[in-house]
């Protein structure tokens, strides 16, 4: 099995916690006609990290870097959930039972159902365990 095809490149952008920073990022991506598929902001003491799945991560990286943003790629996986009560539980239980730790996560609900984006400590192990348990992982090609 090629686990790599399930590894998705998230872009992570360092941002100070002050007005206008998100607008600057979003404007840059819009200019390059880059579509944001999933998105979250994590905040700490005075600063934050903007995390996004985009259709053209390399292009997004280069554009934001050229504007002076501090940006890095992070590997995440995306698990399909049932868009109904108990949907999150099913996925979370698989991971919990498999002893896989979630560092952070965010979700979106699109036309093809709900998707949970996960950053885990052992990504390849996580892919194998999730697939073994019968859940569906979205392939990288779905996003970019």
């Amino acid at each position, binding site marked *: 099995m090629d686990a790599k095809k399930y590894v998705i490149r*998230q872009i*992570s952008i*360092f*941002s*100070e916690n002050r007005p206008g920073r998100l607008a600057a990022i979003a404007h840059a991506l819009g200019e390059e006609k880059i579509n944001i598929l999933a998105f979250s902001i*994590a905040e*700490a*003491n*005075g*600063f*934050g*990290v903007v995390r996004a799945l985009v259709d053209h991560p390399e292009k997004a990286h280069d554009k934001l870097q050229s504007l*002076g*943003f*501090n*940006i*890095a*790629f*992070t590997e995440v996986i995306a698990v399909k959930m049932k868009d109904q009560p108990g949907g999150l539980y099913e996925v979370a239980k698989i991971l919990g039972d498999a002893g896989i730790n979630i*560092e*952070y996560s965010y979700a979106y609900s699109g036309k093809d159902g709900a998707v949970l984006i996960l950053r885990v400590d052992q990504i390849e192990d996580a892919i194998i365990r999730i697939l073994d348990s019968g859940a569906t992982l979205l392939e990288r090609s779905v996003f970019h």
Partner: protein
Amino acid sequence: MFWDKKTETLKPADLKALQLKRLKKTLAQVQHVDFYQKRLAEAGVKASSIKTLDDIRKIPFTKKQDLRDGYPFGFFAVPLKKIVRIHTTSGTTGKPTVVGYTRKDLDTWSDLIARNMTMVGITEEDVFQNMVNYGMFTGGLGFHYGAEKVGMTVIPSATGNTKRQIEMINDFGVTTIHCTPSYAMHLSEVAEEMGTTMDSLKTGIFGAEAWSESTRKTLESRLGVTAYDSYGLSELFGPGVAFECPERDGLHIWHDSYLVEIIDPKTGEQVADGERGEMVVTPLVKEAMPLLRYRTGDVTLIMEDGCICRRGKKIARITGRSDDMLVIRGINVFPSQIEHVLLKIPEVGNQFMVYIDRINHLDEMTVDVEINRDSFSGELADLANLQKKVVKELRDALELRTTVKLVEPGSLPRFEGKAKRVVDRREVV
């Protein structure tokens, strides 16, 4: 009241004669220090060069950096076995400045503090709570020994646990306190929260940081004390160098022990009485660590008028610094120390900005620092750890808790010429 009336009220001619005698003695004492031997030889100053007090102008200045370069014991004029105590004070970069005392020095120093306390009417009847750091900072042990010499009942409460401090003040009937003015303000607020007053208090001695006349009024009404300004620096023993008398209009500096000059910090030339400049002091009574023309960096002036109390000429309250040293919660901080710390942390840039605020009467320092472009892993947790690391490194170097803000690379101002990296937003004195 006088502790040493004869010395404190010496006539100008007698004082000058004593100063000259002691200056010559100090000049002999510094010959035991390699730095001074070399420095004086270079300047062509011999014992015979100093015939009058004005001849002091032939002697080169000593700067804080010189002391730092002598780390640790380069400025000791006596063997280490004769040194009975060491204190330190923060330097401009990593290493602190070390000061040493012989047994006689400790006696001289505590005697000067006894003069100050007696001058404002404190006696052996008083109960004294010393609410400053008792460690390497000279303020703790310095005042402790001086107060014991006066015969006061001394409570070495040091810092922290404000509620307990207030309980002790009330339970022990404390009449006199010594602390930083910002801590005194905090003390009064905590007492208010506790719903208590500190009725036994009469006298407050406040020093180690600059404070305004409006702070004096506030402290006096909130604490029920008469507030006195205390001045000193570790290089000149510590506290006790100058102190307000009951007139509270300028500080009496002990001219028999400290030869004072006010200079233009740019030219090094002396300025006239009444003109503001940097205070340069030659301590005349130090045994372990004699200094010549020490640049204090403190800006003041010699007041032209005499004082009703008959002691010598006063200096005005310190209005600032001639260098970039900051005093945060009584601790000396140089911006270069911050730079030095940041240079050692590869994940952050070397640009920084420092903001100083007074929040609830306590100084708070915020340091903005850029993260390095290459060190961003994309993980929030790594950034949070980096932030903690910078806080810890700064605390280790400055002995001060700071708030560190990580900012985006390239976002801090770049300076051409002299950098203005410090924004002090505390109330102006």
